[in-house]
């Protein structure tokens, strides 16, 4: 039995400590916004925040999470996140949308730490988030637009 704090709520999950946080979130807690893409921290679709910092939940094990607070796309909040999500819809960034929870969490983290990122900053921060539809052109535009709106 492991206790996880996800989006502000405590969840007791019946599982071994080596279970990846991804599968606990999806299959045991039932939050499906966090996606499975590769299982080896190569694609970023499973990105969540752990005490505010982005991690790949497919390579984060529930036994290691301890008291850290997990934030998934369903619990993402605050001005930066909401601006990113609004801009994403305004620019029609998603195509299939499958990777976008991870993209949005990574973009939110980037803008939280770097309010005016350059294209190179964006490439560096977002390169771990694969998008097979290659919506990168709009992801880049979306981050710049969110930065602009947050500054205003």
């Amino acid at each position, binding site marked *: 039995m492991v206790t996880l704090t996800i989006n502000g709520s405590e969840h007791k999950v019946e*599982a*071994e400590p080596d*279970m*990846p946080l991804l*599968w606990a979130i*999806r*299959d*045991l807690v*039932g*939050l*499906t*916004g*966090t*996606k*499975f*893409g*590769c*299982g*080896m921290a*190569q*694609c970023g*679709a499973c990105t969540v925040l752990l005490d505010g910092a982005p991690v790949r939940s497919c390579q984060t094990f529930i036994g290691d999470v301890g008291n850290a607070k997990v934030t*998934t*796309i*369903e619990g993402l909040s605050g001005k930066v996140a909401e601006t990113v*999500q609004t801009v*994403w*819809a*305004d620019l*029609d*960034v*998603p*195509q*299939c*949308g*499958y*990777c*976008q*929870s991870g993209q*949005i969490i990574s973009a939110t983290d980037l803008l939280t730490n770097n309010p005016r990122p350059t294209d190179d900053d*964006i*490439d*560096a921060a*977002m*390169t771990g*988030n*694969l*998008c*097979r*539809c*290659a*919506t*990168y*052109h*709009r*992801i*880049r535009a979306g981050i710049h637009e969110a930065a602009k709106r947050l500054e205003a």
Partner: protein
Amino acid sequence: MIPKLMQSLVLPVANAKASRRQFMLGALAAGGGVAVGYHILASSTAAASETAADGNKAVAFTPYLTIDNTGKVMVLSSQFEMGQGSYNGLATLVAEELDADWSSIDVQGVAGNVKAYGNVAFGGAIQGTGGSTSMVTSWERYRKAGAAARAMLVAAAASEWGVQPAEITVENGVLAHPSGKTAGFGAFAAKAAAMPLPVDVKLKQPADWKLIGNAKLKRFDSTRKTNGTEQYTIDVNLPGMLTAVMIHPPMFGAKVKSFDAAAARSVKGVVDVVETPRGIAVVGEHMWAAIKGREAVKVVWDDTDAEKRSTPELMAMYKDLAGKAPVAIARKDGDVDAGFAAAAKVIEATFEFPYLAHSAMEPLNAVARRNEDGTLEIWGGHQFPDVYQMLAGQIVGITPDKVQLHVMKTGGSFGRRAVFDGDVVVESVYVAKAIGFRAPVKVQWTREDDMRAGRYRPSYVHTLKAGIDGDGKLVAWSDHIVGQSIMAKTAFDGMIQNGVDPTSVEGANNLPYAIPNQTVGLTSTDVGVPVLWWRSVGSTHTAFAAETFIDEIAEAAGRDPIEYRLSMLDPQSRHAVVLKLAAEKAEWTKPLPKGRFRGVSVAESFGSVVAQIAEVSTDDSGGIKVERVVAAVDCGLAVNPDQVRAQVEGGIGFGLGAILGEEITLTSGKVDQGNFDVYTPLRIDAMPVVEVHILASANPPSGIGEPGVPPIGPAVANAVYKALGKRIRTMPLAKSFNA
């Protein structure tokens, strides 16, 4: 039985000996083609009345839409949504003619009524999503459905209000009468749906369109894709559902000899380990239990019939075959031998293309459940629903109509979910059956399963030969293509005529250039690696070979690449027009800053023509980066211009990833790549700036999901040649420098 039936479905098309493009245009010219006639609106077999998940009462107007008592319009889409925006396109067609409030529109996938949903571009007798045909098949049908529903709502309101229908206006989801009476669609939905279907409906004139062609229209589904609420197949969670992972054969064609599941069964959360015709399934309470259980299963394989060759051996065989005479001829104009004999200069080149994986972000999956009444339900990315209904029904011993498909959205596909054998869909049924249908089962592939299960873009070798006369004029051209047929040994093999699989040669046997003597030959190979259509299919390799070779010829002739292409095109042709548009927008004749180089290409696929100009830069170490791509697109009328742009942007990224780094290789029959550490689609740091220019067109919409892909490879390769002086003929690109 299944293949035979499928064959009969596709044979009418094959017998007509029509190319895909001819057929598509033929269907359009016929004013709606086989299944799109107006009468079909009346053949509604959709539920006449159903309570939607939100508890509201929805009524069906035709097989194409329902409206509920709150006024919510649900478009019932025959086209599967994998990100390409077809749902949005169909919603646009319906909402336009219905004069609906765009924010009240939603879309769900449907299947099981081929009369209504059969794809016109495939002959109308089979439902399917592919070949970038969603708009082609939907253009008449869904606009008429919207217009019919509008007329029925007006008739209901007129009757209720005691006024003439002609006096009622409809705008933005509101019915209004000059007397001051107004109502939303919800108020009259039930009454309207019971109204007789109008005898004929008039569609709007283009000048009256508000949504079609509106570049500012936003996708109806973007918000749900930014907050984690969009539901994909992986998200299906039924009461009591179990999750299974598969152990597929390690080599294509290998079979299970024996297996030992004792240790796996003792893994916590593992429920069962069963054998299916497609491998061993480990069934768990959840995904992690199944994965851990799988690690403990020992399988002995019988590899007697397996494909055991390695990539170098296969490529050597392909190159050897490419040097011989082709087995089949896909095009023959003039006398190519005489043309070469008379040429002042002859150039030859050999191109090599690897297997490519679709590797959509959502690894393949499906969920199956048998109900107490013996019917079967399957949730999945049903790109070929009729096929899956038949295959699933066979496994269970029920007729296809007893198989209900829930068409889920999926995280990409790129062709991967349009399979002849049902693939993961039948796997879910096999596993559910193997456990005695005691619970619904989700089969979920891991990334490695997905990447190693085959169904790749086939590997190909092209040998090209061109002859130019003393003036540099291209007088002879031959292209010999060697590689696996996608359609051979499948239900679609009726499409193969005179030994030519059209998907092997498309883009090569319809070159737009005026070349008096040319042949396109094909040698189809017999290799045990399963292959499939991969976004833009044949044009993934044919356009690359042809458009880089044309550049090489232009150089030999001492001509500018665009000017040379234009000299072989009718100035009014679509190819010429998009080439000129791209040249103008990219300022082709303007010198570039030091260290920047340009390349061009143009390709037709799925009824659309796209020209691209790529700009690359080099660094001191000889590394190259694609900085900018300017695309000019003729896709007929752009229903959703911003989605046309999105598909071309994404298509460029998808195609660029392939030439920069994607490759599936085999070692003694085993696939070497398993995950994104070694199979490397494009990441954001390699994504160029993209500009998309859409040609204004009044022609009916043609494809756009795929046509952005073919030109990017050759445009970049031609720019890289300018930069580094090296012709790019072996994919992925870096291999050309080692070759």
